[in-house]
């Protein structure tokens, strides 16, 4: 204990044995500042310690463990012993099912951006006006985002059954020819999923865009209008460019969410049929080939691949697109 005390500035000053360079032994006016540094260190350790422990214990450690298990053929019982090297990774990358899954994930990423982005901006522009019932509409648009994925999934899967409410409604309004097998038809299922995703997550995008719009000073729009700009010119040349940072952040969140999509698919299509219906994602592939099949080693390898894909996409996006919005973030170190 006394050694520890002796090793730190505060400790030495407490022991009354200041060394050269320590705060107490230095000439004034340094003392306050030096003591502040010692305390600073303690504060950093105390304040960041718990966060670092939790981050390392719950994020880094599991990632390392997954990487470790990924090198084994392992049924999940006892300690893994059957070392197979990179064989799991080779199987993943050559599995046609995994190629399908990557394609689905890619489509979901792109379609989410293309469907939700413009729609959210338009809705946000609309809701930024002073119109009747504005807060009511805002609430209604945001409600789906608050409902849990399980409820959304169960609800929509009941609505979209062949004998469900959607087809019934179509028949009753004379549009029976539009009725279809929304969930099981491989040509349609992904579009049904995209519809549900858009319905569910558009509220989040709209709220973000609205917040972005409201942070833009009114004076800019006013000045443009005085100069004779039309409403659309103001939106196009003033509001949209200034909304840029918000759009880029939203797109980032949307991409990461799309890459990791699991719950909606798992609830609607269950454990088995998502690949048949063409809605499987990397996450459902991982659960299907890892946990359901009892190949825990293989499943861990899939998790690592998924982590790397997300990491590469995230870093690339930050590096290329978010750089000007987030100066000094991770990107600075990665040249």
């Amino acid at each position: 204990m006394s050694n520890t005390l002796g090793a730190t500035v505060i400790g030495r000053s407490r022991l009354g044995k200041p060394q050269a360079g320590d705060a107490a032994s230095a000439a004034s006016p340094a003392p306050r500042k030096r003591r502040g540094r010692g305390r600073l260190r303690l504060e950093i350790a105390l304040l960041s310690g718990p966060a670092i422990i939790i981050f390392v214990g719950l994020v880094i450690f599991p990632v390392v463990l997954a990487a470790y298990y990924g090198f084994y053929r392992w049924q999940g019982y006892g300690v893994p012993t059957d070392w197979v090297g990179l064989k799991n990774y080779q199987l993943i990358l050559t599995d046609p099912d995994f190629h399908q899954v990557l394609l689905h994930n890619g489509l979901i990423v792109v379609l989410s951006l293309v469907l939700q982005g413009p729609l959210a901006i338009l809705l946000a522009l609309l809701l930024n006006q002073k119109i009747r019932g504005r807060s009511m509409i805002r609430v209604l648009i945001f409600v789906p985002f608050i409902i849990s994925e399980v409820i959304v999934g169960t609800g929509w899967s009941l609505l979209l059954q062949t004998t469900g409410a959607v087809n019934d409604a179509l028949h009753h309004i004379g549009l029976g020819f539009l009725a279809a097998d929304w969930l099981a038809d491989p040509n349609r299922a992904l579009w049904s999923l995209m519809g549900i995703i858009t319905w569910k997550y558009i509220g989040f995008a709209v709220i973000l865009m609205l917040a972005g719009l409201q942070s833009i000073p009114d004076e800019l729009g006013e000045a443009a209008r005085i100069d004779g700009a039309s409403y659309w010119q103001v939106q196009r040349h003033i509001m949209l460019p200034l909304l840029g940072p918000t759009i880029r952040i939203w797109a980032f969140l949307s991409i990461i969410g799309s890459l990791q999509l699991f719950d909606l698919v798992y609830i609607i299509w269950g454990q088995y049929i998502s690949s048949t219906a063409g809605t499987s994602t990397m996450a459902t592939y991982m659960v299907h080939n890892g946990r359901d099949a009892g190949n825990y080693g293989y499943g861990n390898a899939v998790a690592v691949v998924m982590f790397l894909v997300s990491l590469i996409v995230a870093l690339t996006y930050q590096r290329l697109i978010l750089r000007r919005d987030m100066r000094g973030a991770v990107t600075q170190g990665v040249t």
Partner: protein
Amino acid sequence: MMKKTRTAAIAALGLGLALAASACAGGGSSSGGGQSSGGQVTLSFWTNATPGPGLTFFHNAAKTYHTLHPNVTINIQSIQNESFDGKLQTALNSNSAPDMFLQRGGGKMQAMVNAGQLQPLNLTATDQSNVSPAAISTDSIDGKVYAIPMDTLPEGIFYSKDLFSRAGIAAPPTTIPELEADVAKLKAIKVAPIAVGAKDAWPAAHWYYYFALRECSQATMNATAKSLNFSDPCWTKAGDDLSSFLKVNPFEQGFLTTSAQQGAGSSAGLVANHKAAMELMGNWDPGVISTLTPNQKPLPDLGWFPFPAVPGGQGDPSAMMGGSGGYSVSAHAPKEAFGFLEFLLTKDQQQAYGKAFISIPVNKAAQGIVTSSYEISSLQAFNKAAYTMQFLDTVYGQNVGNAMNTAVVNLLAGKGTSAGIVSATNAAAAKGA
């Protein structure tokens, strides 16, 4: 300055990790199942029976056993079926296995045996008279018994007698062409001929299993269980049979997103509500159906017939498929655990079990409780069967079974081929053990 900050951070981190590690290590030994002190033994027992007659049976059995053996207390723990395997696996891995637990059998049991997680059970002469060698054979590996079965679960087609007579079907079909003719008759009265819960994959896959059972000889099926090589032409033939059967559109609309047991829209629910006439299912089905009828009572007109014969197949037309499994004792459980399982095999307990689960008890002396027509038909067929096979996803292990089930669903959806089933199973064998 920077350096010292870093040192402090690393020190904090190290301390945290040490704490976390010791916290993990602390739980290991003490949370393990059986504890005995001063002759008192407390045993844990995991079942997938959910609150209802089944769980009540186990609670009563534990109470009765405690009266007979006052030093043994048994804690019954109910775990929902779909989350059971994951929880059990975690428990086995962290040395906190329950003393006794539901065993699925097949490849899963093999994996537990390989990992040294199960106790081999030495059956006494009394035990052997309670449970026949045939029934126990599926729970044995290399001549050692690793699980005690509670009931026999032969599979067949459950049907509604009312719907059959309304459609003008005099007797249940005995061949596939007859079944196809009945499908047409049932369509004429506007009900779904056959319900299948393809969302859960295995109910759909059971159609393929049965076609394989009819097409492949017993020897081929057993040889494949060892080699996991599905190259015999009968495997593709079974897929072709299923494809051609699909041409008569026997299943309900939207079967791909229908689950097996959940709610009135499930395949069991369709049968329970007379929306579908037939369902291929194991012997647990009447219990499931009875919870889904409008009045929550057993379906009065429920009948049963064995899977029809396939002309020209190599397999015996009387052969049957069914589930096995039972209850296992974990490696470190006290010896009293097996005593409780032996007790569950006695006649009185078996009768109570059969009534609670509406199933056929494994102890022949207790089979007198079987009275309903569908149970009598399935018991007769079971006793007449030339041989019985376990469900293929059990026989061939979780890994290959999982891939096979998915491939069958692909075939049903019109997305796959019968050759695809064979190649999918071969590919899965590469991923796992």
